[in-house]
């Protein structure tokens, strides 16, 4: 049968058609889509700012100036980025196995608690040298975070309890837990904070070396950055270069195949949640010993765990990219401290996350513009 003239003549136009991608898109494509998503998010955020009576261009220009405008603020940006690097690594490890650890916030807090306990209990005396103090506090921080990751991991492995809900609840428990200590036993004269840590329990900062290198004067970048970079390298080794990492990736991509291959999924759920928690806990340790220098709720429970989720996603779970993206988000948070109104950075983070997740759609589908021919 030959096609005859259709009774309805349509005018020429375009139609969108979606097709699942059969082949992997080229290497640059995901990056381009992510950048596009951020651009869309900034435009959407700008519209919201404008509606709320602000000037989006000035807000964004302010963010750029306040975070990269001078050596001093670049250093501050890095300080803000440091905890994010570690929480984002934590999330990326768990997400790689499709474990939705939303509890990096709580694990971060428990890491800060663990590290603080070494000084405040005190487990080590105040005159302990720094070379001993710092590693012990790192271990304690990782332990605190790992414990907080172990709980949802164990509950998931043994009882199939949804890790999203349990890790979320543990965030609130962690906040109440440190509040209990700093209001009570460790309270500094009744204030809601502990006493300041002795100097040798602080992570070294650039400004400590200002006497020999004058350019470092006033720069607060601390050794937590090194911890973060080292952790990123270790995570890369584990995920991409080790047998365990292969198992993690296989479980994430195809749990059924992993099961057939004899991989113990339940054990991996527990271990990966503990690794994830330990990384976030290390972030808490770095923040409390590098920046805050005492246990205090508001600067510790400041939402780094949630920002880590976004950064992990934006970095496509790749450790090296995590570092770069963390610096950008550090800038956003830093500028947010001064920018008025203060809700802007959180809101923009939210929009970026949603548009990023939505943009994954473009990686899985090909959108084609099809010309509808003039018929008849």
């Amino acid at each position: 049968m030959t096609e005859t003239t259709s009774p309805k003549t349509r005018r020429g136009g375009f139609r969108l058609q979606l097709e699942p991608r059969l082949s992997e898109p080229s290497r640059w494509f995901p990056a381009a889509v992510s950048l596009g998503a951020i651009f869309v998010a900034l435009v959407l955020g700008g519209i919201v700012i404008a509606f709320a009576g602000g000037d989006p261009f000035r807000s964004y220009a302010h963010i750029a100036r306040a975070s990269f405008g001078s050596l001093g603020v670049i250093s501050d940006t890095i300080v803000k980025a440091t905890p994010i690097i570690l929480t984002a690594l934590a999330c990326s490890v768990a997400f790689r196995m499709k474990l939705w650890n939303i509890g990096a916030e709580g694990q971060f807090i428990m890491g800060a608690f663990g590290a603080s306990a070494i000084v405040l209990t005190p487990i080590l005396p105040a005159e302990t040298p720094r070379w001993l103090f710092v590693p012990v506090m790192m271990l304690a921080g990782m332990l605190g975070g790992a414990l907080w990751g172990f709980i949802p991991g164990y509950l998931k492995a043994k009882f199939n309890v949804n890790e999203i809900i349990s890790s979320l609840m543990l965030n609130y428990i962690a906040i109440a837990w440190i509040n209990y200590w700093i209001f009570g036993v460790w309270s500094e004269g009744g204030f809601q904070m502990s006493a300041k840590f002795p100097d040798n329990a602080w992570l070294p900062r650039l400004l400590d070396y200002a006497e020999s290198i004058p350019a470092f004067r006033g720069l607060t970048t601390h050794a937590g950055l090194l911890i973060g970079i080292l952790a990123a390298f270790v995570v890369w080794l584990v995920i991409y270069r080790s047998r365990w990492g292969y198992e993690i990736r296989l479980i994430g991509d195809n749990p059924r195949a992993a099961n057939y291959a004899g991989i113990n999924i339940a054990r991996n759920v527990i271990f990966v949640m503990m690794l994830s928690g330990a990384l976030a806990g290390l972030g808490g340790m770095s923040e409390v010993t590098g920046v805050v220098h005492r246990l205090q709720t508001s600067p510790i429970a400041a939402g780094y765990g949630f920002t880590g989720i976004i950064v992990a996603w934006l970095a496509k779970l790749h450790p090296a990219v995590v570092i770069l993206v963390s610096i950008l988000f550090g800038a956003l948070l830093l500028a947010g401290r001064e920018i008025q109104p203060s809700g802007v950075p959180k809101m923009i983070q939210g929009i970026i996350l949603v548009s990023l997740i939505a943009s994954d759609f473009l990686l899985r589908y090909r959108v084609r513009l099809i010309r509808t021919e003039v018929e008849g």
Partner: protein
Amino acid sequence: MISDLFSVTVLVGILASGIRLATPYLYAAIGETFGQRSGVLNLGVEGQMLLGAFAAFYVALKTGNLGLAVFVALLVGAVMGLAMAFVTVNLHAQQGISGIGFYLFGLGLSDLLFQKMLGTVETVKGFPKVDIPFLSDIPGLGEIFFSQSILVYGAYLLVPVAWFVLNKTTLGLKIRSVGENPEAADSLGVSVAGIRYFTITLGGTLSGLAGASLSIGLLNVFQQNMTSGLGFIAVALVYFGGWRPWGVLGGALLFSMVNALQLWIQVLGIPIPSDIAVMMPYVLTILVLVASVSRVRAPSALTKSFERDE
């Protein structure tokens, strides 16, 4: 001091505030129940509540019209719900993560609007208590159950309505089938996308109302991050209640009673550290999840996006 806790007036006070405090949980969690029964986990409830709370508060403050305030809160919640539905249904987003995005968005935007449009914490005249004739005169019980605001009555009324819709109507059957087996539902001609759009938008709308019930019903103020985790607990309550409205009601009451008790413990100065008391509802949620996992099964398609093979 401990004996104070058990005097009748105190007990009535605790129970009455427990009944009242369950309101935001109920609205948000019943809305979330609809979403999850259709296979969608909306983790953005907290953000939707914050925006609803702000919208209701602002309108009530500027116009004094509480009905309009509730309407605007519903509208704001619905718009947030629609956005979530678009991202979830059309763009197949990973639900656990995109919900966090909506949470941060609502948290940031409500803070931004608060500072731009209000600046300081003010109070507003919220919904008054409505005494139900005769019933409110019953000693004790009257104060507990029948002397509450209209938003409180509405929340409890929602439970049987939700139960009826989910279990006794065609719409409910469609919602459940989409949540259990979207492929089968689709082959029977049920629009999976349509149903999910409906449930997610309904969930957003009710979350907006939950926010309003806080800012112009229970507390009559708006503050940054005033929900402080309430929306996330509402999500947990759906698991807690085994995806059934009556179960959700039980969970909401348990939570709000623990909250009320904890407030009274602080008021009466009973020496239980308040931070330990604050932890209890969260610990309880986890324990109940552990206990209930073997008993009730989640909707099979929960968090799974549906793609039609064509």
